[in-house]
């Protein structure tokens, strides 16, 4: 299918569903059914089996026609992580049950992966799932769960066999967040708001039909989820001075009285780093377009985390006395992180999470060193031990 063909499809769709007169949800459902949700997905599951690159054409055509969008930022975990995993490992029943309301945003998803004792070492997780008839009974605690308080469904990994080494005894499930035994508590963080949650699971019953992939192979399934998470980060084209650097540069230009020589040098260095990171991202996207995926993806997250922290720290200093103030410590529960909607102090504090969430900078450096540069792994003492014998 070509760009011309896809435009014809979109225009035919728009002729039948006028965005001006069609109800928002009806429009989104119809768009999914027409295969224009994610064109690279199979026919019948919101796609046309077309090249992924054509999605940009579809989005542009629909946006130009004033079509409603499915609010991808609010439902990012479902779109970016649950959907590709369900597509790859789900049964036909699971795909047809979950993908449509996921894409339209009718059902929000969250991710029950991290635990208080299993962050970077995710495979050490201890939440148990025990077989019980045609289902499983789950007990444990998860943490850092965005959207748990609004989510209808969760992707969950749990330990189903404590007698084998940690990577081999994990199974992947789809968990109904409305089930009894699930308790969601806001987790207030450094910024004052509660963007994340703790989730307690006590005797939660999950039918075996909601298992994704084979018993004991949850780690491999989770890799698909995590790889898609990293592709999602840094995959967007940004203009020069896009993101945090633009915010600080604007403040610098508007407020000549705040400038100092020392901050000037730091700002120029950071501006330069941001531009180099932008060009690196652009080069990565060009490689992907011609089918030469480079290993730069993991690097982009590392670079952006460092920059966001450097720039947001610089901004607070630049503001001097104003930097001593904070806009609001009220505990709110935002559905999305909006750096630019808050003030410099918020940006400074929230950016601290950039080098922790979605893979810490330390883990990303290990990944680069081992998978890209081919350096030997650190000796591991826990790799072949049964999970139940691990030191905790």
């Amino acid at each position, binding site marked *: 299918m070509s760009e011309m063909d896809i435009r014809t499809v979109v225009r035919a769709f728009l002729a039948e569903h006028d965005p001006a007169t069609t109800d928002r949800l009806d429009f989104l459902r119809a768009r999914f059914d027409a295969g224009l949700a994610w064109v690279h997905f199979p026919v019948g599951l919101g796609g046309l089996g077309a090249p992924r690159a054509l999605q940009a054409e579809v989005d542009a055509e629909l946006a130009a026609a004033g079509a409603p969008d499915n609010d991808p930022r609010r439902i990012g975990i479902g779109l970016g992580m649950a959907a590709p995993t369900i597509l790859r490992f789900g049964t036909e029943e699971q795909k047809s049950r979950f993908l449509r309301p996921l894409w339209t945003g009718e059902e929000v998803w969250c991710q029950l992966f991290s635990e208080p004792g299993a962050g970077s070492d995710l495979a050490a997780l201890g939440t148990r799932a025990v077989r019980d008839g045609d289902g499983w009974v789950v007990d444990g605690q998860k943490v850092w769960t965005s959207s748990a308080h609004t989510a209808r469904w969760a992707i969950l990994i749990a330990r189903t066999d404590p007698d084998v080494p940690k990577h081999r005894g994990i199974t992947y499930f789809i968990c109904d967040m409305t089930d009894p035994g699930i308790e969601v508590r806001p987790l207030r963080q450094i910024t004052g708001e509660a963007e994340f949650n703790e989730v307690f699971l006590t005797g939660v019953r999950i039918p075996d039909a909601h298992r994704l992939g084979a018993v004991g192979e949850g780690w491999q399934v989770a890799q698909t989820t995590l790889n898609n998470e990293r592709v999602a980060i840094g995959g967007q084209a940004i203009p020069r*001075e896009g993101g945090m650097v633009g915010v600080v*540069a604007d403040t*610098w*230009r508007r407020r*000549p009285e705040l*400038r*100092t*020589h020392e901050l*000037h*040098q730091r*700002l*120029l*260095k950071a*501006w*330069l*780093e941001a*531009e*180099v*990171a932008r*060009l*690196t991202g*652009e*080069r990565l996207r*060009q*490689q992907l377009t*011609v089918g*030469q995926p480079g290993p*730069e993806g993991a*690097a982009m997250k*590392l*670079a952006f985390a460092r920059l966001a922290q450097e720039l947001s720290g610089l901004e607070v200093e630049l503001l001097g006395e104003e930097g001593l103030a904070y806009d609001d410590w009220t505990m709110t529960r935002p559905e999305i992180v909006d750096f630019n909607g808050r003030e410099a102090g918020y940006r400074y504090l929230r950016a601290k999470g950039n080098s922790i969430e979605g893979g810490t900078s*330390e883990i*990303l*450096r*290990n990944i*680069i*060193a*081992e998978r*890209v*540069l*081919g*350096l*030997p*792994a*650190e*000796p591991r003492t826990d790799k072949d031990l049964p999970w139940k014998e691990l030191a905790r």
Partner: protein
Amino acid sequence: MSDLLYSEIEEELRSSVRDLLTDHCPPSAVLAGCESREPYDLALWRSLAAELGAAGLQVPEEYGGAGASLRETAVVMEELGRSVAPVPFLGSAVLATTALLACPASDLLPALAEGARTAVLAVPLSTAPGAAFPSGVRADGNGALTGRLTSVADALTADVLLVPAVDADGPGLYAVEASATGLGVVRRTSLDLTRPLADVTLEGVPARKLAGADTAPAALERALLTGAGLLASEQLGIAEWCLGTTVAYLKERKQFGRALGSFQAIKHRLADLWLETVGARAAARYAADALAGESPDAALAVAVAQAHCGALAVRAAEECVQLHGGIGMTWEHPAHLYLKRAKADQIALGTPGHHRNALAGLVDLPGPVD
């Protein structure tokens, strides 16, 4: 957005240049050459320039060049950096050739394009784009030049010197034959053993005027900007060699009963270095592409590439020395050749600090007024 990848033709060119350098320019040969009386490998230069046509890549076909672009020339610079090759490519094929291409008189170009002769732009290697037109050399009414220039790279073997000089009409660019009476070219002991510098004295030296006040300043600026932009590719090549060589060594070298490269403290340093090298590739490619297309963004692209790549090459070479341990401090190990080239390149055609300050003007981030 410009094309930041390498074309198939560019990859073929890279592979030819790399093969030649692998065969004829191993680090041992570079080191031996540095210690000889002959600072350049002119046989290598002839193979590179004449057989591979590298000297005339950016020269249009009508002047006997390949009619390619600065993108291809940048690829050659990468490979020359990777092998710290002692050839006058930067001075002749980049700086002098670019200046000549911007001059009305272009009869020197064919000989430069085929590598039969070499030329040099007679300015200190540290001269940055945006510098004021040099006033150290004056031309009298007969076009004879008098004055003194220091730290000119690639001048020792040059057949022709392109000398910026001031005459009664203002700035001009003059060609001086190396054999001309009254010209002195004296080798200096330079930090970079592989790109020796020379001081040039002119005492009433006969010269031919190539460009006058209307074009000479622009030709000089274009040459300096192009030189700075393409030097970023050389710096990328240096960094790549240093990173690759260090990674290979740390996979092999064992201490405390395991490969040094398995220690996380070392891995993280190399991962950071790799990340900056990936950035350098994007920045250097963008600069080469912007210069090749004469993009309005070229000055900014060059400032970004130079500021990033200049600092990176030094850091990569310093890490290479440190992570090799004692062997990295020896004369026998080639790491020092790369460190010396990287440090000299950091100053050449503008320091990273100079280029960052240039950015301040280009992107409207002025400093404090006081």
